[in-house]
């Protein structure tokens, strides 16, 4: 097939030279067109990733090879145990919150006729559209120790003020709150797209059979959306787990290094304190969970593509 189509054009244009003929060969042209992408992936993703592993095995001055020394050192430190705990707590609770709110929003939105969804959908997506580094500044100001506008409301209703970022527990809550605010619209959009692809007749049939709202959700919606739900959740898990912006701006890891997650701790150790190898080791701890989640996402996406190709 490819040989036939490759010789065809040359016959039509007999004046074509040797270079043109090679260029017209399907595979040569294909590889040339992919070359920038291949170079980018090799030089700017694969190489830095491998380099990070190499860096993580050097000493602080990068003069000697220490093997797994940095990783062992980290695992022995109480601060780093907190980092691991805090990263998992942050990612898991934020993803659960985002998925629940996004799912609720998508369901509420699905009741409304599609031609009247635009304005509401547009307004609900604003948290996702504003660059996170900028909107987090707005949140930071809302959490300000002396001028917090939230505390003004609490005062008004007679509830004691909250040290939003000054107390470890509340600081963790605040970060999860900001991340949930930012990420829920994404879940809403993904679920809404999935809901729209569920054939309407299924709901009609369930309604006529007298299914309750819960039964419709449990036996029609969830099975139809299972794949897209798992893709979205895993994807969000990766992004939330690797978050940097929110924690960096709100607390920079404080109070007393109790709210660091992997990325902010790696930044503090590697860039601010200048221990590049240790910083590289910190961020490499993210790799296992990222790899596992990525594997399942890729599997889910491929399966969905096959289903869509078959259907």
């Amino acid at each position, binding site marked *: 097939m490819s040989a036939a189509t490759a010789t065809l054009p040359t016959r039509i244009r007999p004046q074509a030279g040797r270079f043109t003929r090679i260029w017209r060969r399907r595979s040569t042209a294909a590889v040339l067109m992919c070359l920038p992408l291949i170079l980018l992936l090799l030089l700017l993703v694969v190489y830095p990733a491998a*380099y990070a592993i190499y860096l993580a095995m050097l000493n602080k001055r990068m003069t000697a090879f220490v093997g797994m020394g940095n990783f062992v050192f980290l695992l022995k430190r109480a601060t780093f145990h907190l980092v691991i705990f805090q990263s998992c707590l942050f990612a898991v609770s934020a993803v659960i919150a985002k998925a629940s709110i996004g799912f609720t929003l998508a369901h509420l939105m699905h009741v409304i006729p599609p031609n009247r969804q635009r304005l509401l959908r547009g307004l609900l997506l604003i948290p996702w559209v504003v660059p996170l580094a900028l909107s987090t*500044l707005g949140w930071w100001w809302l959490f300000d120790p002396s001028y917090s506008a939230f505390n003004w409301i609490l005062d008004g209703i007679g509830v004691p003020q909250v040290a939003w970022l000054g107390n470890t527990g509340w600081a963790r809550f605040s970060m999860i709150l900001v991340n949930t605010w930012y990420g829920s619209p994404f879940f809403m959009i993904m679920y809404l797209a999935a809901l729209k692809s569920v054939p309407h007749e299924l709901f009609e049939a369930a309604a006529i059979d007298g299914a309750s709202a819960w039964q419709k959700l449990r036996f029609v919606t969830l099975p139809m959306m299972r794949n897209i739900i798992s893709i979205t959740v895993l994807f969000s898990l990766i992004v939330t787990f690797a978050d940097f912006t929110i924690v960096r701006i709100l607390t920079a890891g404080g109070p007393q290094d109790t709210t660091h997650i992997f990325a902010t701790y790696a930044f503090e150790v590697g860039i601010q304190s200048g221990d590049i190898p240790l910083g590289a080791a910190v961020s490499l701890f*993210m790799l296992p969970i990222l790899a596992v989640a990525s594997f399942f996402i890729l599997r889910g996406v491929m399966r969905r593509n096959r289903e869509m190709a078959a259907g």
Partner: protein
Amino acid sequence: MKPRRLTSLSRQRRWALRGSYAALAVFVVLFLVPPFHMFVTSLKTSAEISGQAANPWLVQHPTLRNYIELLANEHYRGFFLNSIKITVVVVAVSMAISILAAFSLARMRFWGSGVLAAGVFLTYLVPDSLLFIPFFQIVGKLGLINNTWGMLIVYPTLAVPFCTWIMIGYFSSIPKELDEAALIDGASWLQILFKIFIPVAMPGIIAAAIFAFTVSWGQFIYPLAYLYSADQMVLTVGIISELIRADVFEWGKIMAGSLMAAAPPVIIYAFLMDYYVSGLTAGATKG
């Protein structure tokens, strides 16, 4: 029996509709609290902000002074200009790389093309916070630390994989008959790409370009780690460093500066919402 059930169904539906509108309105209000508060603060003078007695959710003497002073501030204008120039170049470079690659991967299967497509998707999942430390060394060796153009090396790694991935999806949905006919007529691959694929897949290209724009405009960790002097900074990091001097927080200006910095993506979104949404969902529903 039958008519009663139908009316109860439609009544049920009407209540569900009202309930949905009400609940969604509550969510809209909650979601817009932070931007609203930013806006209110941006209209206040420092004196009004520090006068603690007044309601922080309202503004007594609205003024545009924060905006005007920022626009007159040479550094702030510099951040804006740096953000624009790096974003424009990154979008152009990323789109060029991903359109070419996606065309090749969608149409001209070659040895290893399946693996490459999966690899593209996997690199999309590699977060910036995993690679910023090795890149610090690499950018440093290239002598591009504290240089806005150094961002040109790192930003495309975030934009290109996803853009390529969704462009593969858009290109694959174009009927094969179209390019086979053109091929028989003697068109070259590049002609097919420019005369057929790019015009037909324009919505996908716009969606991918919006994604590249958003990523590049809002990037935070790389400029925070690599840029440290005011003339090289971009908006996301410049606002904090310029407007916070020791313990003096100019909150009115920080909010005004953030809102102006957020304006370009929000404006693009307001006009191209459908492309934006299709780009958002394309990663999982297309490709």
